């Protein structure tokens, strides 16, 4: 078996035996199904409420899992020194990192899968009608999680778990506001601040790109070309982050 796969499967097993994960998934499912109750409070728009809350829950709990489980996976290895025995084996450091990332991606895929199944079940039960657009929205949520996980892994190659979590959370929030950065820059006219804002706009991940929840819920079209470009952007951004993470990790001393 390929060494990346060995590490990925071990990582996946680690997350499966982590109780935090089950708690998160449980609360995710609880929130998704509670949408049925909430929707009874509204008149006429029940279906939209259920879909809206469901997609938002998948997104939020996915992000929490990506950040908190994701950061634990690399920094905990360093902090608990379990990494010593791995690096002492014929395993190049990038293999370790890519293995960890792949294992986490697999965990997220399974979790998003479970939450999505709960979501579609809720939608079916409430007779709101499952639309292909909802599947597209879940797909892009997963793409967003892949980017956030790469951010988390990148930070945890050189800083502590707490700081990694803080930074990643900050990137997540800013990542949804990058359009505002550009708008602000445009209003300022030609200035140093505009240059800085532009640099930030282009270097930070534009996470709103992956947000089609509104369109999906309100039945607006999501073009296949949009999906392709969002996926391409996500994969490219993730690749760059992982290359950066590998470069940092390669030079790191394990004291």
């Amino acid at each position, binding site marked *: *078996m390929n*060494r990346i796969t*060995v*590490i990925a499967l*071990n990582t996946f*097993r*680690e997350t499966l*035996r*982590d109780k935090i994960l089950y708690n998160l998934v449980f609360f995710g499912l609880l929130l998704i199904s509670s949408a049925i109750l909430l929707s009874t409070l509204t008149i006429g728009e029940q279906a939209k409420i259920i879909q809206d809350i469901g997609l938002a829950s998948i997104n939020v709990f996915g992000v929490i899992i990506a950040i908190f489980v994701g950061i634990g996976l690399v920094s905990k290895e360093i902090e*608990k*020194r*379990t990494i*010593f*025995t*791995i*690096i*002492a*084996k*014929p*395993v*190049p450091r990038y293999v370790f990192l890519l293995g960890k990332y792949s294992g986490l991606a697999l965990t997220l895929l399974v979790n998003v899968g479970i939450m999505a199944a709960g979501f579609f079940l809720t939608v079916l039960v409430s007779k709101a009608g499952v639309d292909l657009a909802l599947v597209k929205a879940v797909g892009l949520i997963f793409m967003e999680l892949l980017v956030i996980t790469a951010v988390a892994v990148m930070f945890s190659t050189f800083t502590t778990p707490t700081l990694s979590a803080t930074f990643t959370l900050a990137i997540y929030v800013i990542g949804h506001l990058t359009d505002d950065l550009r708008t602000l820059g445009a209003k300022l006219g030609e200035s140093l601040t505009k240059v800085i804002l532009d640099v930030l706009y282009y270097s930070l991940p534009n996470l709103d790109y992956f947000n089609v929840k509104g369109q999906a819920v309100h039945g607006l079209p999501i073009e296949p070309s949009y999906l392709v470009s969002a996926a391409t952007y996500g994969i490219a951004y993730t690749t760059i982050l992982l290359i950066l993470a590998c470069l940092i990790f390669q*030079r790191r*001393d*394990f*004291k």
Partner: protein
Amino acid sequence: MKPLRIEGLTKEFRLGLGRQRVVALDRLDLEVEPGEIFGFLGHNGAGKTTTIKLLLGLLAPTAGRAWILDRPIQDVAVKQHVGFLPESPYFYEYLTAAEFLTFYGQLFGLSRQALAKKIDDLLTMVSLADARHLPLRKFSKGMLQRIGLAQALVNDPQVVILDEPMSGLDPIGRRDVRDIILRLKDEGKTIFFSTHILPDVEMICDRVGILVKGQLRAVGAVHELVGAATVTSVEILVERLAEAGAREVEQLGGTVVRRGNQVLIKLDDEHKTDQVVDLIRRHAGRLVSLVPHKRSLEDLFLKEVGVRHA
């Protein structure tokens, strides 16, 4: 082919905001011969773990070079033939003993089938066959150390590097680890281990190196360093030795201490031992014990460390 060759290996750390330089290892030169047990001695903070981490690529050297089995340590592939047990090992506690060894075996590219037999043998060797399906979080410290050893041997390594393999173990645990190390030597493996527990070193090491504050102070066979024939003093315990006899012993240069009807004689010159024993017989004393005190590795170690601290 040398299992281990180190030339001028140096590691500096920069600490704190002032980026103060701290030399953890200072131009270490060392060679380890095939099939030997090499003990790497030093007090806490002497640079033993730093050396081991440099050899395994956990740290990058500031200067100097090293080779394992004639291949530079930067070559990741050489680790295929190296076994490593870190100091107070931390392992994936959610894995069972068997899963744990399987995982490490797979990192060496071994197949599950090849590993199944190997893992049985290893678990038996470290007396953990019963704990096969127990998660590591339920292991005691001694068990963790033993599973750590098993992990270090899963690839049948030619060179085994152990960082403080006996620290924190009870006497039985230490004996088990010693036995395993001796068994590995019988299998023709080279063992390099760090420790500060001196009796273990005297018992099993072919050669030792003493590291003090990042510098290698002494290296050689234990008996060479300690001096096999150098008896520094002799203690003789006698019963029923008459007062006249005791006075004669004192005239020969011995120190006499009375304890009830027993007399403890301490001789600083071992060549007078025979004379004193004759004298005891003449005075009808009964010889209880005779203990020659050799210069021990501990004395040597304390001397080397003391020299530096003074």
